[in-house]
């Protein structure tokens, strides 16, 4: 593994195909070809030239474009698999139940294989990470030798190099004047012209060669931004429900921010006020105009341990509407949902026969009192409260949860004529009198509801990184797509003047440019060796 010294004196790394300086062919295989493979300037993509240690072997694996393409293909196929059935964040049943119930054996298999959370699975992340690694190594392995080769290139090139360029021509009778004209014209066309012993190298748009690498840097930054989201505190996306009149801790703010919900407002379009849309509104029914929560944001001051009442300092009042979030210190609180919750129940204590009322009581379902005194010797005691009532398996009344979805009570009603009281079980549309016929009854009068605002708390500090990555990505694409790297050699060889040219794309444009440059001179247009070859074949 020795470096190769070219006859021009330049020392090339092992594995170089074309001398970086003069372009002489160093690889015997390449000599047999009529045209040169100019990719990466014939520089030594080192990884492909030797592998020794484990590190080199890993490096070489990721340096292969073939491996990179396969990684992308596998990731694509995996991503497709994740779209066959809904992912776990879009289902409202426990996944172990949902998939089998909805999709049978296939659903069960899908769940068992872990495809219900495919995009969060370790192997999917690993695939993405491997694409990232491949991107970094592929780019490094190519951009460094390419940069070195382009930097080391000399004006005077080896005959074999010029002869094997796609565009090549020989002129025998030339005077210096014509070459000077050509040089001037090339400069006018914004070529950077270098001269050495009367030989010319005109070059432009070299920076377009860096396009793909700028693009890759953008992609890597983009992936890095995605990775940042896993750092605690960088990316927050949480739901927060706050009842009217209550204050709740905003999640993921380090127990710093508290949100008080003063009022939830729901407005509809009014048919009377919007005459123009009367018909449409009639057809559509209620159309919501505004979802709004009037909130106050507080910040905690001082230390606090859980369970302690926090000391709060008001930060600001705000009316949170759809698309008008409350923003503070990088957090955005969006209006995203609402629900109406049963909050209180009102009963009348009546005499069953006469239907005479002895007073009314309203029970707060979040915090019921033990005893309600109605005056004149009438009172009602709650013996048992079931916020989410059901009959348990053993037939006993019980509650499913602490949420008042289906409240039920066991009351003891005391009246002057019933000093020991009467017991009654009351649920929605149901009254049971366990100890025989009662004189009194808790007549249901109404329910009170309370609105609960649903907020989404968001914070995304990684967004800027992702945007910068995206911008660089596009710059790279534009750089590589809209500019070409063109080189024209005009050189004296064996008393003749040889003209050769190379571009990384848009050969037609290059040929047109050479035509213009050589117009009205003794220099003849060089030939496109690739095209003449194919036309020859067609001619036969």
């Amino acid at each position, binding site marked *: 593994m020795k470096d190769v010294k070219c006859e021009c004196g330049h020392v090339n790394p092992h594995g170089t195909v074309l001398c970086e300086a003069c372009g002489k062919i160093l690889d015997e295989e390449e000599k047999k070809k009529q045209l040169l493979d100019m990719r990466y300037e014939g520089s030594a993509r080192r990884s492909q030239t030797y592998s020794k240690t484990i590190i080199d072997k890993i490096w070489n694996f990721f340096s292969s474009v073939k491996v990179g393409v396969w990684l992308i293909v596998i990731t694509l196929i995996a991503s497709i698999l994740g779209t066959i059935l809904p992912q776990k964040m879009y289902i409202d049943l426990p996944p172990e139940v949902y998939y089998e119930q909805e999709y049978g054996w296939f659903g069960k298999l899908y769940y068992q294989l872990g495809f219900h959370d495919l995009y*969060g699975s370790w192997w999917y992340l690993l695939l993405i990470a491997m694409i990232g*690694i491949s991107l970094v190594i592929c780019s490094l392995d190519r951009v460094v030798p390419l940069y070195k080769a382009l930097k080391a290139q000399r004006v005077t090139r080896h005959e074999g190099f010029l002869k094997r360029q796609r565009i090549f021509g020989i002129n025998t009778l030339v005077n210096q004047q014509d070459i000077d004209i050509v040089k001037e014209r090339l400069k006018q066309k914004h070529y950077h012209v270098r001269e050495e012993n009367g030989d010319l190298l005109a070059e432009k748009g070299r920076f377009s060669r860096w396009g793909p690498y700028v693009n890759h840097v953008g992609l890597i930054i983009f992936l890095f931004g995605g990775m940042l989201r896993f750092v605690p505190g960088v990316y927050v996306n949480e739901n927060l429900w706050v009842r009217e009149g209550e204050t709740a*801790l905003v999640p993921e703010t380090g127990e710093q921010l508290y949100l008080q919900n003063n009022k939830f407002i729901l407005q509809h379009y009014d048919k009377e006020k919007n005459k123009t849309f009367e018909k449409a509104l009639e057809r559509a029914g209620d159309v919501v105009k505004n979802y709004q929560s009037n909130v106050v944001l507080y910040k905690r001051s001082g230390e606090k341990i859980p369970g*302690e009442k926090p000391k709060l300092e008001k930060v600001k009042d705000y009316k949170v509407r759809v698309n008008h979030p409350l923003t503070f210190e990088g957090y955005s609180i969006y209006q995203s949902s609402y629900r109406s919750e049963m909050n209180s129940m009102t009963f009348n204590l009546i005499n069953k026969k006469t239907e005479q009322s002895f007073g009314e009581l309203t029970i707060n379902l979040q915090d019921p009192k033990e005893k309600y005194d109605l005056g004149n010797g009438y009172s009602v005691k709650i013996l*048992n409260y079931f916020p989410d009532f059901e009959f348990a398996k053993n037939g006993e009344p019980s509650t499913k949860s602490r949420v008042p979805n289906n409240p039920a009570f066991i009351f003891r009603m005391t009246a002057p004529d019933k000093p020991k009281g009467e017991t009654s079980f009351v649920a929605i549309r149901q009254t049971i009198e366990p100890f025989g016929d009662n004189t009194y009854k808790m007549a249901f009068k109404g329910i009170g509801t309370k609105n609960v605002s649903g907020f989404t708390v968001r914070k995304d500090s990684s967004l800027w990184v992702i945007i910068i990555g995206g911008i660089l990505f596009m710059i790279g694409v534009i750089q590589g797509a809209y500019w070409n790297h063109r080189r024209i050699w005009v050189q004296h060889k064996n008393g003749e003047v040889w003209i050769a040219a190379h571009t990384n794309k848009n050969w037609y444009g290059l040929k047109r440019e050479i035509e213009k440059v050589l117009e009205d001179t003794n220099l003849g247009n060089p030939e496109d060796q690739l095209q003449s070859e194919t036309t020859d074949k067609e001619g036969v």
Partner: protein
Amino acid sequence: MKKRRLIMRSIILAILVAAVAYTLYANFMKDHAQKVAVGNQAPDFVLTDMQGNKHRLSDYKGQGVFLNFWGTWCPPCKKEMPYINNQYHQFKDQGVQVLSIDIQESELAVNQFIARYKLDFPVMIDTDKEVMTAYGIDQLPATFLIDKDGKVVKSTTGEMSEDMVREYMEKIKP
């Protein structure tokens, strides 16, 4: 020259591998977030019991604390409560304290529950789920065993038998 290249490659690969490993680790931790791990200091809290007495966990240094989270509506909680109450009487003079925390229920429901099961240990209501959040609980009942130095010795969710309760209290006896 060749050595330098090997070092460069090793460094670049190490950085990439570290980034990938961190991402995978963070992703794994997100799913298996356990806020209070065994061996860690138990998060301090202050709650007021039904008699109006304040209980601060750090005030119980020097005693073992049997910390139980529950709800009146949860059937396994109902089952294990009498066991805890029995063992509380056995161990309270041996330096084991029972603190039991109801999650966000009404005083009425909790008081009726205490009366029905004749519970003698302090019962507190975590009105804003703050303590529950601090301990990262999502299933009831949940029990944390805290030793005399305030360290978590064991945590468990689900119903306990009386033998388990006894064994656990034995564990945290100072």
